[in-house]
């Protein structure tokens, strides 16, 4: 599904991603952990197509296509979704309205006609229920005046509506209360399927109790320095990152 080979990228002359490799197969859930500033959000943004970052070398293929060659919208239309670490507020643009435009443009890209209004409404209702998002929030302007937790839930709601094949969740658990965490995790779990993959970026093992990953990677200073299974997350929770940093220095 996603194959990242030796990716190097940065911003304003500063290299942040320093030779990154990752293979994600259909249906897999990968967790990426790592200290603040190690490059997790940078990686997510590069994958989503943020133009501020400069890719100096490496390859990224997504379902066999060259991802780095595509515009952000085409990446989304090909099935990539990024739940932002800090979702922005867009006053005046209604959630529903923009999702409808998004769905129809994605459909047009695939050669399909616009979705029937009643089908769209049904879809919205269904997905709202999935992430237990209040109806009033869906009808409001994108994230405007939403609490931190509501913004995160809205990201998952959008993901549920757009049904991507690869979803990157950048610290979606940060700022969620315990109930919201469970709801978001449930939402993700219900969307898990054999042809849908997830990259879950988190600082907390707790989320991984709910969304059980197939692999856990540690990103440190722009590269994956350790990979393992869900037990690695438990170990990190217990011991912190120092031992890994030490390993890196020694190696």
């Amino acid at each position, binding site marked *: 599904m996603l194959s990242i080979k030796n990716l190097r990228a940065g911003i304003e002359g500063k290299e942040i991603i320093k030779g990154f490799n990752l293979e994600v197969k259909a249906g897999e859930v990968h967790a990426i952990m790592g200290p603040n500033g190690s490059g997790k959000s940078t990686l997510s943004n590069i994958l989503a197509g943020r133009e501020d970052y400069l890719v100096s070398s490496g390859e990224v293929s997504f379902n066999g296509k060259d991802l780095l060659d595509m515009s952000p919208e085409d990446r989304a239309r090909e099935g990539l979704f990024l739940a932002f670490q800090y979702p922005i507020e*867009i006053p005046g643009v209604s959630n529903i309205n923009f999702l409808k435009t998004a769905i129809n443009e994605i459909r047009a890209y695939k050669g399909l006609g616009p979705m029937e209004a009643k089908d769209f409404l049904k879809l919205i209702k269904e997905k709202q229920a999935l992430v237990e998002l209040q109806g009033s929030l869906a009808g409001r302007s994108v994230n405007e005046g939403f609490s931190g937790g509501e913004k995160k839930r809205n990201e998952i709601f959008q993901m549920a509506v757009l049904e991507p094949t690869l979803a990157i969740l950048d610290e979606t658990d940060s700022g969620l209360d315990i109930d919201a965490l469970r709801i978001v995790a449930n939402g993700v779990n219900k969307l898990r399927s054999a042809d849908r993959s997830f990259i879950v970026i988190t600082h907390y093992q707790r989320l991984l109790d709910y969304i059980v990953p197939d692999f856990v990677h540690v990103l440190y200073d722009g590269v994956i320095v350790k990979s393992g299974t869900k037990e690695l997350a438990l170990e990190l929770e217990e011991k912190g990152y120092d031992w890994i940093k030490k390993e890196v220095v020694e190696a």
Partner: protein
Amino acid sequence: MIAAEKISSTGKLVSDFEEVKKTLPGNSFVQNIRQKAIESFAELGIPARKNEEYKYSNVQKLFADTVTLSVAEAPFSNISIQKYLIPNLDAHTVVLANGVFSEELSSLKNLDKSIVVSSLQNAFEKHPELIEKCFSKCADINSDAFIALNTAYAADGIFISVPDNILVEKPIHIINLIAAKESTLFFPRNLFVVGKNAQVQLVETFETHDLPVKAISDSVTEIAVDENAKVQYYRLQNDCENGQQINTVCASQQKNSHFDTNTVTLSGGWIRNNLNIALNGENCETHLNGLFITSDTQHVDNHTLVDHRKPHCESNQTYKGILDEKSTGIFNGKIFVQRDAQKTNAYQSSKNILLSDDATINTKPQLEIYADDVKCSHGSSTGKIDDDALFYLRARGLGIASARKLLLHAFVNDVMQTIRINALREYLETLIHKKLGE
């Protein structure tokens, strides 16, 4: 009748007046005012570049191309106005052709008998008492050269009188049409008198019917809003690129009255709007909203003046501009709070988006506050489309064009929501959609 004279300068306009005035309508009261007005114009002259009020709007250049003076002839009436009507707007329609009231093109059936909608000429004859009370009262001939020039030369326009306690059920739609084969200067003059406890919605649209050459319209509209009256006044400026306007609106409010106005400028080559509101009674409320979306080499200059003369009034201004290509915009908002006007609330905001590096906007708030117990604020911002927002939408699958459009619609949304006539708002939304889609 007309005086077809070549003009190009202050001096010529002043000397031509001697001949033209013999043909102008109005009793001695009106003629007297005209005389004073031309004297004031002679003194003020066509404003030069160094005139602070016209610093960014070069009117000298506008008048440099010789123009023909048109004083009072409706040159066309055998046209269809269908395309100038607003879809689904159930309204009384009044047509001003080259600044002259056209009875044939207007449709005023079913208008309550007590309400007068007629030509200004007619009002000069039939309603001298209202003319003496309200004509040339809030538009001060000594304050601005174009008010003076219009007051001297204006031969016609629309007169509306809504008597006390009358609620006009349907909006009155005033359609301004301009057509000329030669570069012409027009002087439309309107007077709206709204009585105590009366209510009316006015929609004014500006269109060029057939204008292969440049024309200038120096128009003045006076609106007298009496105690406890409520007036909504919406304007859509949609001229072709040859249309040039110096458009002055002066409203005077008496106590407990509401005046809401909205100026939407979508096309037209060169536009200067002067919007002056005088709050002459306590507890008045006034909302001034504006929106301009410009492209090409369009020039749109909005000057507002809100004069708080009495206590406990509130004024609220929101102007938004989207400027593309080589267009230029100006927002200059003056707020005066006089010594008497305690407990004033006055707000002003001007926000602009530049879509091109060649577009420019100048914004200037001017607050002069002589009372001490007031709440005033102003803010202005100019920027580009928010890149983060654009990326967010694109990351959800929206193409760059529709993402931009959505963000620009969002930007103008609060101004659009102040338009309380649904058919008008929907019509404007379609026009805006088209304009942004170019």
